[in-house]
């Protein structure tokens, strides 16, 4: 490569290397602004950044929704109405296994995106499949927990505490289930459509969604299960 005659292209290569997705990492300093990042006065951001940014905003709103269910649990934690307490219904070994499966699935999800960046269809599909499998393990374990509780007569209709417990944990389980369906759809799209621009954008959003569910789960694991088992 002849760097001497083409300083402009050299500059472009440097920029791609340092800021491949034009996230504008160099725009805050004294350097010239980065186009396509949507910062300051540089003009509209690229579609890729818009999609990721918009999805982040959605995730924030989703987390606000979870926060209401967390608040309800905090308010109703001791409203057992003479029924079982939170300490009597949590089963730490199973939940620890669930947690491991979900956190591991976040790791494989990230690996699948590394494969997307390498435009490797096979490894993308393999890691997405493992992610989905781990998600399925998580959902099935949670389902088992719910069914076992219901067999003992412990249902949301029993008390305010159980209402908020099933509401919060169930809402997260519902998110993971929907995320699993989304994952299956993405696997099909990668298979059929390949790494088209819009498919990659959807994969970005899916990754953000899956990791956000992990963050929410860490909150649930800590506040509902770990703090509950000590009660």
């Amino acid at each position, binding site marked *: 490569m002849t760097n001497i005659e083409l300083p402009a292209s050299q500059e472009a290569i440097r920029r791609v290397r340092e800021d491949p997705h034009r996230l504008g990492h160099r725009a805050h300093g004294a350097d010239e602004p980065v186009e396509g990042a*949507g910062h*300051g*006065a*540089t*003009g*509209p*951001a690229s579609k890729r*950044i*818009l999609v990721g*940014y*918009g999805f982040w*905003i*959605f995730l*924030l*709103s*989703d987390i*606000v*929704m979870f926060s*209401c*269910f967390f*608040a*309800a649990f905090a*308010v*109703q934690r001791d*409203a*057992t*109405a003479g029924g079982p307490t939170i300490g009597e219904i949590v089963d730490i070994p199973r939940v620890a296994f669930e947690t491991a499966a979900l956190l591991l699935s976040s790791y494989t999800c990230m690996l699948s995106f590394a494969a997307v960046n390498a435009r490797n269809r096979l490894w993308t599909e393999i890691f997405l499949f493992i992610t989905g499998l781990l998600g399925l393990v998580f959902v099935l374990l949670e389902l088992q927990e719910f069914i076992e509780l219901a067999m003992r007569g412990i249902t*949301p*209709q*029993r*008390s*305010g*505490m*159980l*209402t*908020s417990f*099933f*509401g919060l944990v169930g809402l997260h389980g519902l998110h993971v289930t929907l995320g699993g369906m989304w994952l299956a759809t993405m696997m099909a799209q990668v298979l059929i459509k390949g790494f088209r621009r819009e498919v990659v954008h959807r994969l970005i959003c899916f990754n953000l969604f899956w990791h956000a569910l992990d963050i929410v789960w860490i909150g649930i694991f800590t506040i509902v299960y770990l703090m509950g088992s000590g009660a």
Partner: protein
Amino acid sequence: MFGKLDLSAIPLSQPIPLITSAVVILLALGVLVLITVKGWWPYLWRDWITSVDHKRIGVMYCLLGVLMLIRGFADAIMMRTQQAVAINAPGYLPPEHYNQIFTAHGTIMILFGAMPLVLGFMNFLVPLQLGVRDVAFPTFNSVGFWLTASGALLVNVSLFIGEFARTGWLPYPPLSETAYTPGVGVDYYLWAVQISGVGTLITGINIVTTVLKMRCRGMGYLRMPVFCWTALASSLLIVAVFPVLTATLAMLTLDRYLGFHYFTNTAGGNPMMFVNLVWAWGHPEVYILVLPAFGIFSEIFPTFSGKPLFGYRSMVAATLFICVVSLMVWLHHFFTMGAGAAVNTFFGISSSIIAVGTGVKIYNWIFTMYGGRVRFETPMLWSMGFIFTFIIGGLTGVLLAVPPADFLTHNSMFLVAHFHNVIVGGVVFAIFAGLEFWFPKVFGFRLHEGWGKTAFWLAFIGFWVTFAPLYILGLQGMTRRLQHINFDVWAPWLYVSVAGVGILVLGVIAQVTQLVVSIRNREKLRDVTGDPWDGRSLEWATPSPPPFFNFAVMPNVEGEEAYWGIKLRAVETQQLSPEPAYEPIEMPLNSPVGIYTAFSPRSSVSR
């Protein structure tokens, strides 16, 4: 399939809803027949229903909002006349019907009247003012609108089939629980508000992303028109609090459908939790409405004063101050519900402090007019009427924010007068000012000046004649939502109030006449310049109506008040800007996804 509904849900024995239903159904059928006979369906489908153009969606939002304002106004007429005739008498509305009417009035006016209009303005204006070609997610935008429309449809269907909630516009439990309200009314409320809430959230996400990431070259944050700032603040609030509404309504739905105990007064449910959660949404919601209204006034005052906005940066700071503090005042809606002195004090102080931000804005608008060449055209009349009305409403609000005073006025007609004073005086006046101001931009011709001024004076006087008596009634001890009245001393003020409604009816007639007269004289009122008011922001740089791509070449902004700067330069140099280099551009295709998502029963299953 029909759940709790059967044939008895059709109100055959009640003449008022039955006749209304018949008239509305006939009108709707008439419109459908007209569209079919004239062969307008392909045009409607292609240019409106499946359109993802932010301007078309904005116009449809406003159309929906205006229709619902009229529906809500009909409810208001019934309430005021009922209270005027039901003095030591039963009146003409039975209690169960009257309760549905005040519930529907609040729900419709806030969520299906004011919200769509505000979202419509944001949709139409934000991309144009930022100098870009569309919002960040055009198809998503269409989905948001159609979800709101389907929520509005559900509320109105409840008029013909079944009933609407009788709980007040925020269905407080335990009254709204199945044990006390087993009928379908609350269910209608829950689904309608939930669906339209999701639509609003979608629009909020869209506007936040658009403002933060899609400004044209040179449009730094502190060069954005104030309307964009207020749209951003309002959308940030939507993203922050509409999920709270979604969660709260989901909890109440679980209580009603599956016997959960979130808000029941048995088995450890906690009704106060609903009140806290719903107002944690509800109070920011009024700022979601009023911030864009402030934005509209911030565009109108400089334009009609021929001066830049006074204190632009303090205006931005006040907007963001209100945006943040509005999340910390919700408890003032229930000072009387036992939170204790310390908590009440905190929320009393925060509720008083939030008035400071609004005060800054009021002074800025007044100083914008000071020393300017003020043109008293219709949008400016609405804006000046707003300043007067809103100050009174704000002052009574500060009074209500003092907990000991609130104990005397809580749930009284004083409160009713206060919030109509700020919402009608703030939001509705802004909407009418904005409709007058941007109508030529949207449709390419101005509205008739004389009828516009007539409508303003009728609405302004009518508003005060209607609501000033309610302040007095509140101080005399009259509580809100009374189906009949047993105290003769209240009668004179109730008669004055109903006379005020009569003036407001004339105002509505004047507005409709203005529209009809303007459409008939549209050739004479045609806006050929694209800049009928000598405007200052970028939307006036486009022709009226703007082409679907907004700007053939993306503008490059070089200062505040982008279009004003371009005009000044042209005047100084005595020549137009050089012909730009045109390039191919990318625009989104039409999409029926929105209407399918909102109205197809299979869409939720098969998509």
